[in-house]
């Protein structure tokens, strides 16, 4: 059995995140790392592998040279191998083109299960797992709080706004897991050393039989025309409370803002 865990290299959210001159996310000028939410996807993949016999976990990413770091982290955590789709012509792709590239790479790998994080920590759209399920024609089991596998049936629990659901599907399937699915492990020293010997395949659009005209900034159906940094918020009023003394100040604030 083969599991593909999707991993994305993102700018560190605790640092300054910027846009490049073409209004794409600046991935060169900022420190990057494996998207925290994808660590949960790697963790769940590894747990399935550890519970089963002969389960292989492949970490897959699309991105520039630096994106290798996302795969490296997954390998250090315990994934068996990596696939890095790295092709300059992909730069500036919108989410539709990116999903087409990922879907082509997944088809080539032919896994039984694809595990994703619930969203990236940069674009944060949370749409990729659903779009991949759509493109592959596989079941999409999204926003899983729990994930389990029994034979060729995958089962998740998820919380919607109005109900808690249990959802099942036959493999192959695409699953996304939330940060509630279980803490992700830190790489051990052994894992870090072992990762250096694990194979990572680099693929281009040609390997995936994709038309370069269908990806990149030129093919994007939506393009960003401006990016402006939000002005720092004007410092508000700060008062110190003594035994509820601030209540009147707060009531005035609520009245002035027409919140009452």
């Amino acid at each position: 059995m083969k599991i593909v865990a999707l991993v994305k290299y993102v700018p560190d959210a605790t640092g300054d995140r910027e846009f490049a001159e073409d209004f794409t996310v600046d991935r060169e000028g900022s420190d990057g790392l494996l998207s925290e939410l994808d660590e949960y996807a790697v963790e769940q993949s590894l747990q399935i592998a550890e519970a089963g016999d002969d389960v292989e976990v492949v970490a897959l990413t699309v991105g520039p040279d630096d994106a290798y770091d996302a795969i490296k982290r997954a390998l250090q955590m315990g994934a068996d191998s990596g696939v890095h789709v790295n092709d300059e012509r992909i730069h500036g792709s919108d989410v539709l083109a990116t999903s087409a590239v990922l879907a082509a790479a997944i088809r080539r790998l032919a896994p039984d299960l694809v595990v994703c994080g619930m969203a990236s920590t940069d674009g944060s759209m949370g749409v990729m797992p659903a779009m991949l399920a759509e493109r592959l024609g596989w079941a999409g089991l999204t926003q899983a709080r729990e994930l389990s596998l029994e034979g060729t049936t995958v089962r998740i629990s998820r919380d919607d706004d109005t109900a808690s659901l249990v959802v099942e599907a036959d493999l192959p399937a695409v699953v996304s897991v939330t940060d509630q699915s279980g803490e992700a492990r830190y790489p051990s020293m052994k894992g870090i050393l072992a990762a250096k010997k694990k194979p990572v395949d680099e693929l281009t659009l040609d390997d995936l039989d994709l038309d370069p005209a269908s990806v990149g900034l030129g093919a994007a159906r939506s393009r960003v025309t401006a990016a402006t940094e939000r002005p720092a918020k004007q410092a508000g009023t700060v008062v110190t409370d003594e035994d509820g003394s601030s209540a009147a100040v707060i009531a005035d604030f609520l009245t002035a803002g027409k919140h009452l």
Partner: protein
Amino acid sequence: MSTVLVVLDHLDGAVTKPSLETLTAARQYGAPVAVALGAGAEGAAAAAGEYGAARLVTVTDAELDQSLVAPRVDAVAQIAAEVDAALVLLPAGITAAEVAGRLAVRLDAALITDAVAIGGSLGAVTTSQSVFAGNWTTESEVTGTAVVTLKANSVPAEPDPVTAEVTAATISYAGGSALARITASEAKRETGRPDLGGARIVVSGGRGTDGNFAEVEALADALGAAVGASRAAVDAGWYPHAYQVGQTGKTVSPQLYVAAGISGAIQHRAGMQTSKEVLVVNTDPEAPIFALADLGVVGDLHTVLPAVTEQVKQINR
């Protein structure tokens, strides 16, 4: 290509406020066609008409509730084709994003999620989004058909009454082994409070509540507000995950956000930074959340919130 299609969220025909905002925004492109999916859909007719939808298309098939997302996409895609939609607008949300993503693939359309403003014209829609935890605003331009989700509280809902002609659509579902079958569903307890995503006011509690949300809930009820929680409070098991505000929970953009006992980690700010006004109550004057405060109170929420709740009740009396 001249129609804008709006997918309404409703519960048994009761249309949500963000849906009415979305209908209002859609009217700039001409009379919208509204879609309501699921049990009680025809009950959405009055609200759809009041907010300017000339037509409401309903689908109430059992298939919609038997599997995740895909049957809804079947329905919306077929209706979009039937009315020749150039723009499909949905009130933003986790399921809405998934429906929108699949729809964009199926319609070969542009996809924009969590827009805070929308303009331009059909075939050349423009949007604004708030990104990187609300620290940046981007403007986007779309070519051709577009699928857009609109964040709650971005556009005020304004009525423009017409009579909505109601038609029930017949949908052909893909079915098959690619379905994610819902095998169990347990309804959540009704709180009687407004929905977190669309609420005008949100009162959130964090680590500073020490696990006691009674004071947070009391202030929320006095203000007619929704209750939220930080990830720290949810991880501690003090409040359900469905109420988490932040990167891995809900993104809210209310008129007023009250952060009580919340330090303001980047993951939390990502979910509330676009709130119009922010009131902070925290014992630690160094907490990063104070940087977002219009009014910041250095004090213990267990003292401050009950005192404010009392004042609010007196003013409202």
